[in-house]
Each structure stands twice: as structure tokens, then as C-alpha cells.
């Protein structure tokens, strides 16, 4: 029996998702509508994770599923040309210089995209200047830096210091994340927010760009 997108996400149907998406396309359903439905399901995944109903495993699998969806739909959306998907803001993302870990960053990137952000992922071991160049180029609302080592705190701080030097700090919010970060690290770096998990990170980012968005989090509300 054919299943809908909500059912497939709910049951973590990694093997089914592509089939369901192709079926919907073949039935003539609008690609934006399909994408929107998947984004809504990913938002629910984030909520389920934060409420404790879902675990990191389910977050990882859902993110992989959304990656597959985006892989199918993106070329078709590009074919439509000028009809760009409405983005709620751009996040410049990366693992700063001195750290090559990317697992948490990659999950966050997918979750953020599914939440409507445009994400420019600079990769790992990224020098501070690259973050600034990207910020000047795309004008992000947020810079996100992820790291697993305490050794990257100075690299994160360098990015914030350079943002100040360039007169960009007032225009860009900064969030840091990763297993070795904490409130003390946020304070040292001069970031606006800190998180240990991707779902919370996305919720905080939404709040950072729109304080009326529901939900709190480990962020400096100033």
C-alpha cells in the first residue's frame, strides 16, 4: 500500500523515501509542495528529538533521508530557474581551523536546510579569514562554528574578533556547538549562543533571527 511522506519519515523508511518522492513527482505533484512537506516532517523530527521521543540515531537517519530528498528535488527546482525557494536566512557554517570533525556540523547543516535556512558550508579546518570572506560575500544572518576540541576555542574567537574589526558583528549572530563547548566557551569566544545538539541549534538559530519564534535555549538573549 502506498505510504505518504509523513508515514515514511515517522517510520524512518530510509529505503522507501526515494520511491515515495519519485511517485509524487510522477503523479504531477509540485516539487515545492513535496519539499515543503519534507521540511515540515524534519521540523517534527527536531521537535521529537528535543522532547526525548527521538534519539540521535533517528535524527541521523532522518537527516540522511532529507539529504536524499534534496538530492532528487534540487535539480528539478533549479530547472524552474527564477522561482527560488524562500529562505529564512543564510548560515555560514564550518569547523574552524585546528579541527577536522564534521559529523555534528553535517547533521546541523541538513537540519538547518530542512528548516528553511540557506547554508553555506565551508567544510573543516577553516581559517578565520575564510569565514569573514564568506560573510562579506553572502551576508549571512548567522555564522555557525562547530568543533570537538577545546583547542579550537581561539580559532572561534578569532572569527568573532575579525567580525568586530570588519564592522560586521552587529549584523551577524554567532552560534558555536560541539561536544567540548559550554557556557564558558561561549563567553570566551564572544558568541551569542552555544549548543550541544543539532536540533536545539536550529531552534536557537530561528530564535536568533526572529526573537518572536517560540522556544528558549542556551543563548545570550542580548
Amino acid at each position, binding site marked *: 500500500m502506498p505510504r505518504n511522506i509523513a508515514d515514511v519519515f515517522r517510520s*524512518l523508511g*530510509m*529505503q522507501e523515501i526515494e520511491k515515495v518522492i519519485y511517485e509524487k513527482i510522477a503523479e504531477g505533484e509540485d516539487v515545492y509542495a513535496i519539499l515543503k512537506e519534507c521540511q515540515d516532517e524534519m521540523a517534527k523530527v527536531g521537535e521529537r528529538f528535543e522532547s526525548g521521543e527521538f*534519539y*540521535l*540515531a533517528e535524527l*541521523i*537517519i532522518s537527516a*540522511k533521508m532529507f539529504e536524499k530528498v534534496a538530492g532528487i528535488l534540487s535539480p528539478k527546482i533549479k530547472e524552474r530557474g527564477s522561482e527560488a525557494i524562500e529562505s529564512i536566512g543564510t548560515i555560514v557554517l564550518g569547523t574552524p581551523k*585546528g*579541527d*577536522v*570533525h*564534521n*559529523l555534528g556540523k553535517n547533521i546541523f547543516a541538513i537540519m538547518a536546510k530542512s528548516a528553511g535556512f540557506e547554508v553555506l558550508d565551508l567544510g573543516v579546518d577553516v581559517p578565520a579569514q575564510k569565514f569573514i570572506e564568506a560573510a562579506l560575500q553572502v551576508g549571512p544572518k548567522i555564522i555557525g562554528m562547530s568543533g570537538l*576540541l*577545546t*583547542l579550537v*576555542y581561539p580559532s572561534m574567537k578569532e572569527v568573532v574578533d575579525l567580525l568586530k574589526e570588519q564592522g560586521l558583528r552587529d549584523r551577524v549572530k554567532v552560534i558555536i556547538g560541539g*561536544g*567540548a*563547548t*559550554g*557556557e*564558558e*566557551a561561549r*563567553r*570566551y569566544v564572544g558568541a551569542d549562543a552555544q549548543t*550541544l545538539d543539532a536540533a536545539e541549534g536550529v531552534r536557537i538559530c530561528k530564535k536568533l533571527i526572529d526573537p518572536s519564534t517560540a522556544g528558549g535555549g542556551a543563548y545570550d538573549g542580548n
Partner: protein
Amino acid sequence: MTEIERLRACVALDKVDRPAILPSYMDRFAAMQAGLTFADILERPDEASAAMRRLWDRLGGWGDAVYYAGGTDIYYLSVKFLMRILLPGKHLPRDSYWQIQEMPIIEREDYSLLTRMGWNDFALEMIPRVWEISPEEMERYGSVEAYNRGQAERSLDQYRKDTDLWRQKGVEVFVGASVPSPQMALSCARSLTEYTLDLYEIPDKVEEAVWAALPDLIQNGIAGCKATGIPCVAIILERGSGAYYRLNLFERFEFPQLKKMIEEFVRNGITPLLHLDTDWSKNLPYFKEFPKGKVIASLDGTTNMFNAKKVLRDHVCLMGDVPASLLVAGTTGEVEAYVRKLVEEVGDGGGFILGTGCSMPPNALFQNVKTMIDTCKSYG
């Protein structure tokens, strides 16, 4: 009461004058304090362990024993978990930290091979996938097996030598060997993402493999402790916690194997020290099935230590958990306040060892580390 007696009393949940202190993995912090690079730690283990002893003196002793005798043996880190590691001085600048490449080293079809071979023979087969043996070394040893045996002898000789040097200073070494749980080993070898998909898509194959890996991993822990003469094994866990997987998966792929490991180690007179990175809050009630007063649960600052005390009081010794962020970027006042809270709440009634969350950060502030140690000592 001697320092090592205090540590053993904490494990046994006996009353003590103050909690014992055992910060883990001090080699990287010691190296940075001594101006050594991370490449130096790997290439010159004698210098790395000498730096640890100098740091011990500067801090007036950092604990009631040292956790590991010497610096990190990166070959064993790589082979033990079947992970490819980027090395400072080779793949990275000399002052960069060594870093794991999260990627699948083994494929789905390799589960069957592991199930047939057991962990040790399987891992031997996989060594070329994680560790580059130079043509000169291959010529010298003749085979991967001989190379691996040579590395084992070298590593053991170094550990014994470092242990002797600590004993000459009147300091005991606490941990004699370390092993991953089967789930941890497989998650590292497959990569977290692929292993997670395997759990959902081919659970029976994974279950066969974790049980097949178990006997060798137990024997490796027992043999390691016998070889070093130090009866404590660190069981490295992280990726099986309730932060990652729901409890039905924990009950199938982690807990029964871990329980068996612990029972076998305890039966052999070995103290299991569970290195529990990530949040284990949901799993803690299961730990009451472990033998009382025989096990250390070392938490990393992610699991709420104060709740853990409520759950495991009078059953399991807790260790931890001064967070890395606090040691690197906190103030001495914040460190002191946190340690006091730990000592007074988690240390209440015994069964607590003060430690770092996971490992001592290489770039921790010296004054913060000193404050952490001195604050705890002030209760004695």
C-alpha cells in the same frame, strides 16, 4: 591511608577522608605545559612521560595515582578502534592535535567475516586499512602479524618503563589496560552513521558480530592487565548511550555484552572503569545490575552527575566530571565552586573520585587545574 588505598576505598564505596583524585589523559596537557608539540608526544614517548612527571611536581601531585603511565600510543588507538587517524607531523602540522577520520573502515559484508573470525583475527586483517606500514617496516617484520606483535611489545615495554618511573616517585599507576565495548569498536570501524543504519536495517548481523567480538575484547583486557601488572581496565564507551540509541537497542547491542565484560573482569580481580562519554542518564538504572562496589563509572560532564549520584548511590563509584569548557575558559572561582559542589553532593557518603570530564583538555589553564586539585585536597 595511602593514596592508592583511598582510590580503592572510593571504588569499594567505603568512607574516606576526602574523594580520591584521578584526572585522566594528562599527557597532552603536560606536553603543552612543557612546550612539546603533539607530534613530539607520538614520536618521543620518553619526553612525553618525563613532561608528565615534571607537571606532577609543579602541581604538587595531581591526584592519588596517575591514570595512564605515559603518553598516547597512537598505533594502538587506531588499531583498537579500527579508525584512521590524521597524525601531527605527518598529515597535520606538528602542533595540531591528532584527529579521527570518521569514515567506514569496514563494510556491511565484513560483519560476517568478523563473526567467523572473532575480533582479534579480524582486526589483524583490517590493520592495512587504518595504518600505513612503510615498505621498510614490512621488510623488517615480514608480515602484518609480526609488525603488530612488534608494536605490542614496544608499547608494553614503554608502559612498564613509565610505570616504574612513577613508582620511583612513589606514585602508582591506576589503569593497566583499555578496551572498547564491542558496540563502540564496531561503531568506530563502521562510522557512526553507517553503524546506526546497520542497527535499523541489518540488526541480526550486527548482533552476531557484537557477540563474536566480545570474547577477544574481554581476553585483551585481562591479558593487558596481567602484562602491566595493574588490575584496572578502562572500558571505552560512548556511542551506545541513551543520547544515541533508544533503550531497546541498548538492551540488545550494548548492555548484555558490557555486563558480561564487567563480570569477567571482576571475576579476574580487575576493576572495570567505564569511560562514559556522552549522556548516559537513561542507561544509569541498568548499572545497578553490575556488582556492587566493584565498578567505576567515569562521566564526562554531559551526564548529570548529581542525578547519577541519586540513581547509583551505594552501588557504583562515580568519577568525573569537571567539564572541559570550564577548565579551559572558566575562572578559578567557577572551578572551585563546581568542585565544591561535586565533593559535597556527589562525594556525600563516599563512592566518588574527582576527575575531568573525558580527558584533561590540552589547553586547560594551569591555575584552573591546580584549583580543581587543591580544592578537593582541602577536604582531606
